[in-house]
Every structure is written in C-alpha cells, then in structure tokens.
C-alpha cells in the first residue's frame, strides 16, 4: 500500500506543477503604442541542424556579432533542433506563431525539402526577415582530368552520359545535385541521364582525388585550398559575376562560358508564421546594421561568404522565383511530389 501512496503523491505533484505552469506562460508582446517594437525577452535563434554545420555556424556568428557589437542588447541564444534535414526545427518554429522572439536560419534546403515531400512546412509558411550572405556552387574535377571548361565536360556528357559520375554530399533532389543539374540543363545535357552519387560523410573530395568519380559538385570555399595545391581544378562556378579574392577570381563562371544560368546558396533568417510587422521591421534594420558592420565583414571573409543583404519583401519575392525554377527541374527529373 505504501507504494500506492507514493505513486499518488507523485501524480499529485505533477498535477500541481502543471497547473502552476499554465498561469505563468503569458506571451510577452513588445509592441508599444507608436508602432515601434523592441524585444523584451531573450531571442532564440534555431539552427535546424546539429552543432557545427553551416546553419549552426551562421547562427552562432550572427548572434555573437549582434551582442558583441551591441546591435541588439537583448541576449540571443542559439538552439539546435536537428532532424529531417531541417524539418524538425521548422516545425518547432512554426509552433511559435506570432512570436517576435523566435527565428531560424535557413538556406536553399528550405525550398528543396518541402518540394521533395519531406516537410509539411515551406518558406511560404514563415515570415522572411532578411537574407545576409551568399555562397556559390563550384564544379571541380581532378587536376589531370581531360576537361578544361564546363563546355568540354558537358559535351562529353551529352555523348556518353554513363561514363561520367558526379558526386555531392546531399541526396538526389537536394542542393549539390540540383545545383549541378540546373547548370547542366542550361547547357543542353539530358538531365535524366546524369549519374549522381551521394556521399554523406563528406568524402566527396576523396572520391574525386582517388578517381572513383569524375566531378565534385560542392561549395566554392571548399575548393580553394585544393586548387592552390594543384590537386583539382574548378571548371565553373555558379555566380553571376566573377568572385573576388585570390584564387577565387580565377574561377570562370558558367555564364561567361555561354551557359546562361546561376545558382545562389543564400543564407538568411526567418520568423514564425504571422510575425508582427513592427518586429519584422525592427529585425530588418538590425540585420542591415549587422551586414554593414566591420565585425561581420571579417567573419564573411574568414568563411569565404559573399555579402547578400535582402529585406523582407525582396527576400520573399526572390524565394518565390527560386522555388518555381527548382520545381520545374524536379518535375523533369520525376522527383517532385
């Protein structure tokens, strides 16, 4: 009987504490009468992936500059919500509808993953706040490969697609695959014949160096050091114009090789659905300040990121256009859901 008593006490405890919890959770809303808005409690940035990845790094660096440069006085915490390639984190933020103190960092997978049918939330469900940085794709081959530019590669692919293998980190239908397909399609390659393998342990570069595969589809910054050392060569990058910086400026764009297509790996921040307009305006301005700050310029330089600021409205427009293009590609590949 004593056990029974004990269980009852435990249950009672739970009930009481839960009951207490319900009064104390009144949502703070920082809107004042004149329409301006200021955060009133700590801000939470969700990195929808584990510690150490691109999203996590961006979020932590942004939080750091915001606080250290006193752009935002309220403290900012980065929370990791990993799973489903981001879907778990997005569902979490979607649960904070209307909050002005939650946001998450995102990049093109926010478009790919819903299109692949792997997340019920897409960018339309959230409030775009601002884009901050851009990165571009690079297509690399071994230094002694027979191709010297994208056109030579694509010509061979048109002739005998089964002889060329492309490697990337993400699975088919996501970033590394689609960025290659997008450019190849513009060059007239039959995209359904492209042989693509995914190597999720980030061993793509190894496979390129040991000759298992022929082309490595990756981010620009991952190639610089190898090119410097002369182990690989970059046939093309996906930016509009040539990039700046040592080595980077030598990479030809796809555009200048007559392939009229680009791919941007943008990275920006989103709020939950129906975020207060005044709050969006507040953050837009703060992100602009961040983007213009010297401290953040140093960080961009360190990680090899490009500056690419977009305010909420422009961002929203941009995302809509991008999504449409990707949708067309996926449909052609039979990957769209």
């Amino acid at each position, binding site marked *: 009987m004593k056990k029974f008593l004990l269980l009852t006490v435990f249950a009672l405890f739970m009930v009481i504490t839960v009951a207490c919890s319900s009064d104390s959770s009144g949502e703070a809303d920082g809107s004042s009468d004149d329409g301006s808005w200021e955060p009133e409690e700590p801000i939470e940035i969700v990195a929808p992936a584990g510690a150490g990845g691109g999203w*996590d790094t961006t979020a932590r660096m942004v939080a750091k500059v915001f606080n250290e440069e006193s752009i935002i006085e309220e403290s900012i915490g980065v929370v990791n919500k*990993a799973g489903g390639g981001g879907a778990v984190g997005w569902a979490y933020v979607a649960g904070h509808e209307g909050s002005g103190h939650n946001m998450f960092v995102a990049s093109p997978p926010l478009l790919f993953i819903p299109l692949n049918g792997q997340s019920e939330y897409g960018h339309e469900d959230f409030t775009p706040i601002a884009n901050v940085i851009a990165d571009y794709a690079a297509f690399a081959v071994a230094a002694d490969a027979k191709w010297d530019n994208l056109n030579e590669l694509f010509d061979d692919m048109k002739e005998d697609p089964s002889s060329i293998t492309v490697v990337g980190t993400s699975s088919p239908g996501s970033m590394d695959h689609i960025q290659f397909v997008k450019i190849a399609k513009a060059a007239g390659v039959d995209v359904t014949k492209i*042989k693509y393998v995914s190597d999720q342990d*980030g061993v793509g570069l*190894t496979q390129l160096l040991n000759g298992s595969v022929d082309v490595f589809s990756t981010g620009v910054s991952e190639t610089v050091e190898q090119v410097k*050392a002369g182990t690989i060569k970059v046939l093309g990058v996906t930016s509009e114009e040539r990039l700046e910086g040592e080595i980077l400026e030598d990479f030809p764009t796809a555009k200048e090789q007559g392939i009229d297509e680009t791919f941007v790996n943008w990275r920006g921040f989103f709020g939950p659905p129906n975020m207060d307009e005044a709050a969006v305006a507040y953050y837009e301005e703060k992100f602009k300040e961040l983007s213009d700050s010297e401290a953040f310029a140093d960080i961009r330089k360190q990680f090899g990121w490009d500056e690419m600021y977009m305010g909420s409205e422009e961002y929203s427009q941009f995302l809509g256009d991008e999504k449409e293009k990707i949708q067309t590609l996926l449909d052609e590949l039979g990957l769209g859901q």
Partner: protein
Amino acid sequence: MGSLEGILTGFQVAFSLEGVLFVLIGVFVGTFIGMLPGLGPISAIAVMIPITFGMDPAPALVMMAGVYYGAIFGGSTSSILLNAPGVSGAVATAFDGYPMAQQGKAGKALAIAAICSFFGGTVSVLLLMLLAPALSSVAIAFGPPAYFALMLMGLTAISSLSEGSTIKALLSAVAGFMVATIGIDAQTGTQRFTFGNVNLLEGLDFLVIALGLFALAEVCTLIINRKDLSQENTHKIGSMKLSKEDINEMKGPATRQSLLGFIIGVLPGAGATIASFIAYISEKKIAKNPEEFGKGSVRGLAAPEAANNAATSGAFVPLLSLGIPGSGTTAVMLGAFLVLGVQPGPLLMTDRPEIFWGVIASMYIGNVFLLILNLPLIPYFAKILKIPRPLLISLVIMFSIIGVYAISFNTFDLYMLLLFGVVGFLMRIFSFPAPPFILAFILGGMMEQAFRQSLTISNGSLMIFVQDPIALSLLIVSLLSFVFPLVRQLRKRKG
C-alpha cells in the same frame, strides 16, 4: 622549409608556456565534456569555437585538438562504470569494461582504459609525425568498392560476437541492419520506413540505440536484482594496480590495435567508433581464449581503448594534410580552423608549419596530461559504484535521458530510447546478443551506401569489386576468416 625544421618549430610551439597551458585547458575540458552524458567530441569542439575567436591560431588549435582527443579519452568512464557509453567510440569499451567493473575490479578497468588510451594516443602521434605527409595518399586510396569490402569484413566477424547460438547472433545483426535502413536513402532521396514522421528522416542516432540496448537494458537487470545480496561485490572498486599478468595481457592488443586503429582513423568516414569495433572483433578472433571476451577480459578492454584513441589522431591525417574532414567531428574541427583563419589542406605543412607540426607535437603533451589527470581521479570516479542501487538506477536513467536529449533536443528520440530499452531487455532475457545488433547498425548503413555507390559508378557491374585491388584483397581476407573456422571445425570432427 624541410620537415625536420618544421617538426622543431612544432615542438617549440607546443612546449612554449602558452602551448602547454592551452593543451592543459583543452584536454581538461575535453575529458570533462567526454564524461558528461551525450556530449561527445562534436559538441565539445562546437562549444569551444566561439571561445577561441580572436585568439592566436596556434595555441587555439592546440587547445581544440586537446578537446577532441580528450573527449574520446573521457568517454570510456561511463561505459565502464554504468554500461552507458557517453560517446559512440566507447561502446565497444563497455563489452568487457562493464563486466570487469561488475566483478569488483572497476579501479583496474579504468586504469587499463586510461593506460591503453594513453598508449594508443602516443603511438599514433608518433606515426602521425613520421608518416603524416606519406599517409595522405593512404587516406584517399579507398574508393566506394574498398569501403564496401572493409565494412563487409567487419560484418563477417559477427558470428564471433555471439555467446551461444550463432543463429541468434545473425538474427540480431540482421535486425540491427534493418534499423539502419530507416530514414532518407542517400542515393535516391527515397524515404524508407519513416511512416511519414519527420523525426525519422535522418534515421536513428547511434547513441539512442546504444544507450537503450546497453544502459536501459542494464537498468532493468539492476531493478530485478536490486535486493540480491550476492551481487554485493559490485560495490567494490578494487585496487587499480595492475599485475604483471595484466600488463602482459595488455601489451599485445594495445600495440596491434593502436596500429590498426590509426590506419582506420586515417580513412575518411571510418573513425573511432568503427576502429574500436574492428579492434575488438579482430582481437577476439586471434585470442587464445575467445570465450573470455564479453566477461571482463583484459584484452577485450585494451583493444578498443587503444584503437579509438589511435583513430582520433589518425583522423588528423586527412584533415591536416588534405583538408578533408573524414567525420562529423573533424568537419567541426575544420570549421574551428577556418574561424581562426587557417585553411587545412595540402599546403598547410609548408605555409604554416608552426600550426601543422604544433598541433601534432602538442598531442604528446596532451596524452601525458590526460594520463596524469585521469589516473589519480580513478578512485573518485569509481566511487559512483558505491552509490546505493536505487539511487544509482535513477541516475543512470537520468544520464541516458540527457545523453539522448542533447543529440537532437527532441523528445521523439527519448521515446525511441525507451523503446530500445525494452527491446534490449527482451533480447537479453531471450539470449539474443546485443553487440551484433549495434555492429550491424553502424557498419550496415555505410556498407549499403558504399555498395550502391559502386554500382552506380560501374553502371551496375559487380566486376568493380574485383577490379579494385584494395577491395579484392579485403574481400579475400573476409572470405578466409569465414572459411578457416569451418575447416578447423571439420578437422576437429574428423580427428
């Protein structure tokens, strides 16, 4: 600048006051975080990155490297004492470490783990220093067919992990492999067995299964035996002094598995976890008394501990000399380099010798510090076992819960932990061994991907596995290791 000159510069960096101080901080934080539930080297490095921002790169990186191998070093403690591995590289440590602690020899088990870790760490740093530039070609020698063959070799050892029925061991393995197929398939983007649940898209985390199958299943046994006084000797810690016999037992496995662990660590994508498993099973294969494995064998504890620490240093080969991160942990480590404005890659050794050699040289000091830090603390750690059973059970559960929660910050994984706790307990009472399950879970997933990558590259031809010389030789070795025991048995029967 020649290599020798570079090495000297490295030692100057490492043995400077600043260098020594930061190594000390690094390994201290590393072991500490490694002991905390769920926090492995990845989170340890990630949390240190913002701290190093703005620091001088050489001492900062020396510290980060210390955090990394320190975390692996510290991870074995909870494996041995609680059967609750805190990092995935320490799962194989629990196979013999925990039984040893249960026999009242916790002090000895922890001492063996610390010494073998130190040994593995030091041997591999030596190899790193002598061979790093040359080994970079080994690091890229393995293509998908060779990885497939390597994983297959690991899997063929499963029957040796069984304590009784081979059929049951194989069933465990197939089940573990099946669990590994849950999630998005990397080669096609197809969702497999996810039931539309977003939490399953990336598959189940290794620690969820390890903590469920080992820690929670053990909790169940503890609950059943909680009043059993004959188990009293588990409260004993025992002396941490090693006898001559112990040292003789340790010597062989520690040396062999340090070498093997180092080589596996050099291969991108393999890492400490696979190294520790392969070390364990290969040591069991060649042991004179394999039946002692799993029951507190000194060899069974020495092998994975030497190997996982050796693999950690091995992982620095592709990272430093090629700029290729071979694992999630080294990818974060690469991030740490970038933050400090250092780009690892083929040019690092000539451009920044003070960093390349400084990090390597500091590992000698780091390993010595780890040993000095850990040995005197063993009696205190081992006191955990003195905690009265009921309280200990509650704390192990808490430990497992934080461990799993810290992976994804998501309660879904906790339900999975509970589920695998039940599965682990059922497997235990029906005599299905758990190690084949976990081994197949980790090797199987990688094996499948490598197999299918190979087939895509070869346009569907199986010949690719025979044409690749590394793959072919590994396949022959696994075939032989399968056939030999059979032949031996047949001969015995005839005789």
